[in-house]
């Protein structure tokens, strides 16, 4: 089924210190906002005034103080369900996305937490399903090991099935005592019915992210929104096409599943000012000591990618150790570098407007900074940022973006006040909300019950 107009969707990722590791160190940025619920409400209201589809609350189930180096916002923060309920009370239209990991929750609990959020928010609840990348979370949940991918997805598939079925059988005007579930599956035995009344949206909006085959299948089958992480248009197009094809096999139309890559916009009134902010943020990040030859790195939370010439040499395929990191890179490096190395150099030019040969030259340090953040980043004035978004949208690399503000609240305000009006002027983004619920923003009707849909797929 074709859809008359494709619409751009925008989400806002909330990290209290910004999504840049040093975002909190800018003079105007908040450094103490993680537990300030009024500040979270303010940021959500800014996004709502700009007509964002949703605010996104991520989650992790383990921490380590070493995360302060790479990711202070993920080190210590408010739990997302309680946060979401408070944000619902301070807003009236914007969708609210809560991350919850089935591996470490019960389906009945998630069904009622999400259902409860849908009630107090009048139909704006959304569940971001993650199965967990942090091995050490297992140690916080009385487990001896973090399950391997296959087991996590076997569990998650049945978990999501049970949650949606509980929502279908929730007490309603037609069935005041609810419809028992009597699920007896491979992992769960759940009697039901849910004790929360039928949800205003019937089903909360489902989000999912991931690149593995199992993850793509779960997303294509169950999710209304997919987060993606591809850094450039060709790889994003391939992912986009794959997900839409998989979704079609489940009888789902192209417009029924929105694919939103993450995007970090560094925007200012002029290009020069935007590049200056980008440089300033990266300037806060220290370089790591160089590794001894043959040294084995240990993984774990908070390590992140090494910021040094040794790691850069691996990416470039050229040994650049021993150079002054601040020195200009020799133009000849482009010919010597690997394909990945050339992409790194090109990306650095795109962000900084500096090049290997021009009047403003790329330094080794610039390359280290780019390599340290290879997700989609766009640096520029409002028109340039809008151009970037439009190019991805028009070329079907994205149905919109999950905006990662590098620092708060400045990066949120800059995008909302400067870029959103450009997108609206170009007819890409809504001038007002389509309706009161998150499903309305996504152009989705109420879902049929699971039973109806299973029959549909068989036809």
């Amino acid at each position, binding site marked *: 089924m074709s859809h008359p107009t494709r619409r751009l969707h925008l989400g806002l990722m909330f990290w209290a210190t910004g999504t840049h590791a040093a975002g*909190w*160190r800018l003079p105007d940025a908040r*450094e103490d906002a*993680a*537990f300030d*619920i009024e500040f979270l409400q303010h940021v959500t209201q800014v996004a709502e005034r700009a007509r964002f589809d949703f605010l996104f609350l991520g989650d*992790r*189930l383990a*921490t380590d*103080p*070493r995360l*302060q180096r790479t990711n202070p916002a993920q*080190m*210590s*923060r*408010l*739990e997302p*369900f*309680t*946060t979401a*309920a*408070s944000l*619902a*009370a*301070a807003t009236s239209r914007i969708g609210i996305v809560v991350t919850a990991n089935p591996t*470490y*929750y*019960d389906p*009945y*609990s998630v069904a*009622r*937490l999400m*259902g*409860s*959020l849908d*009630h*107090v928010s*009048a139909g704006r609840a959304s569940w971001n399903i993650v199965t967990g990348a942090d091995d*050490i979370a297992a*140690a916080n*949940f*009385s487990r001896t090991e973090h399950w391997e991918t296959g087991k996590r997805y076997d569990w998650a598939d049945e978990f999501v099935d049970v949650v949606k079925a509980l929502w279908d059988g929730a*007490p*309603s*005007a037609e069935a*005041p*005592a*609810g419809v028992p579930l009597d699920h007896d599956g*491979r*992992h*769960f*035995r*759940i*009697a*039901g*019915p*849910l*004790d929360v*009344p*039928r949800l205003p949206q019937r089903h909360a909006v489902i989000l999912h992210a991931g690149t593995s085959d199992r993850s793509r299948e779960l997303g294509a089958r169950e999710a209304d929104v997919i987060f993606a992480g591809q850094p450039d248009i060709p790889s994003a197009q391939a992912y986009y096409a794959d997900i839409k094809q998989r979704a079609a096999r489940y009888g789902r139309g192209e417009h029924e599943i929105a694919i939103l890559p993450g995007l970090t916009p560094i925007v200012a009134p002029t290009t020069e000012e935007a590049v200056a902010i980008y440089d300033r943020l990266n300037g806060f990040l220290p370089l790591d000591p160089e590794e001894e030859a043959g040294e084995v790195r240990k993984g774990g939370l908070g390590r992140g990618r090494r910021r040094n010439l040794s790691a850069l040499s691996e990416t470039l395929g050229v040994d650049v150790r021993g150079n002054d990191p601040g020195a200009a890179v020799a133009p000849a490096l482009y010919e010597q570098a690997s394909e990945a190395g050339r992409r790194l150099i090109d990306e650095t030019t795109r962000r900084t407007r500096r090049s290997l040969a021009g009047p403003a030259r790329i330094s080794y340090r610039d390359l280290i900074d780019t390599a340290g953040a290879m997700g989609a980043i766009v640096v520029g004035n409002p028109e340039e940022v809008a151009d970037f978004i439009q190019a991805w949208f028009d070329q079907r690399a994205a149905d919109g973006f999950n905006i990662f503000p590098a620092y708060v609240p400045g990066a949120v305000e800059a995008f909302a006040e400067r870029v959103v009006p450009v997108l609206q002027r170009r007819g890409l983004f809504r001038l007002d909300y389509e309706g009161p619920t998150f499903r309305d923003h996504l152009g989705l009707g109420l879902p049929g019950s699971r039973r109806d849909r299973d029959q549909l797929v068989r036809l």
Partner: protein
Amino acid sequence: MSSTSAPLSRAGGLLLAYVHRGAEPSSETAFAGSLLSSLAREIERAGFDLLVLDDEPRVAGAAPRVRIDPFTAASFVATRTRHLGLAVTADAAYYEPFNLARLTASLDHITHGRAALNLVHDPARAAAVNFGVRDRAAPADPARHAREFLHVVRALWDSWEDDAFLRDKASGRFVDGDKVHAIAHRGEHFQVQGPLNVARPPQGQLPLVHVERSPASRPWAAAEADVVVVAAGDEGGVREAAQSLRALAVREGRAANPPLALAPIVPWVADTPDEAQRLRARVSARPDAVAVIGTPDEIAATLQAWVVHGVVDGFAVLPAPEAGQGPRFAEQVVPALVRRGAIGPAAAAAAFTLRGRLGLARPANRHASLPQPVNG
């Protein structure tokens, strides 16, 4: 602290709680934000100290109730109230302690120190039918399980010392890692490494509330709880229950800080004593609450006398199954209590966290007394 003059910050020594037990399953909109907000505001305006959001995660029985998750409700209404304490109910059998510690610590941040936990364990495990996971054994002794659970949660709340955060823009040091602590719990039911990924709750440790369903849980309440609604159906039963609770608390070494005992009451308020009796006669008595019947001033006098005579420290009001009784208690009985000096005006409580309101000090972090590292 003697029970007759509990130093409640509210002044007057009478603590009022309101127990919310869900809604009739007829309405799909019982938990719309606007209705929930009105309810919480009315309860706060009426002068209650604490709203207990009861919970039982299943639909069952002859008169099934629907509800929403208490964390969602508490966090939502926190934005619409200013000083009402908010107690959430959770059954230890259906949570992971790490998740519950995050939920409760976050709720305390969001409410600015107004949160309390009512951790329950149902020996019958009635809701287990909704939480069946293959390969997961039921605890042999739910009470022991709950006790260890609470121990883990309390340790997790202390993961971050109050001054762990540096947030120094100049140096780039965000946190002092020496002031963040794993708990490395290895117990009978739980193995939890920690640290929690939520900063220490504003109250340090959340007050523990307990609503008895029967005397069976009284030893738990005497050992762990800060506020206890005793199970009793008449005044004699309340007196006996409160005495046994206090005696048990003494045996637990809590002579100096016994839990506050609250009587569960269903008030029947009318303009005349006869009318109140007539209202009350229409429904059958419930075994878990005391019917208090009369004019507003009669009821206020009764409640005040119980507190003055040291029977209890306050009351948990269960709304009468009769439209209009909730508002009548709020609009007529509470002002009568204020007139009598049994409770101070609600505004006097606004400056306190819930712990402060209960007369409880903010506890030091268990790690803060350890010797500090030299260059910490």
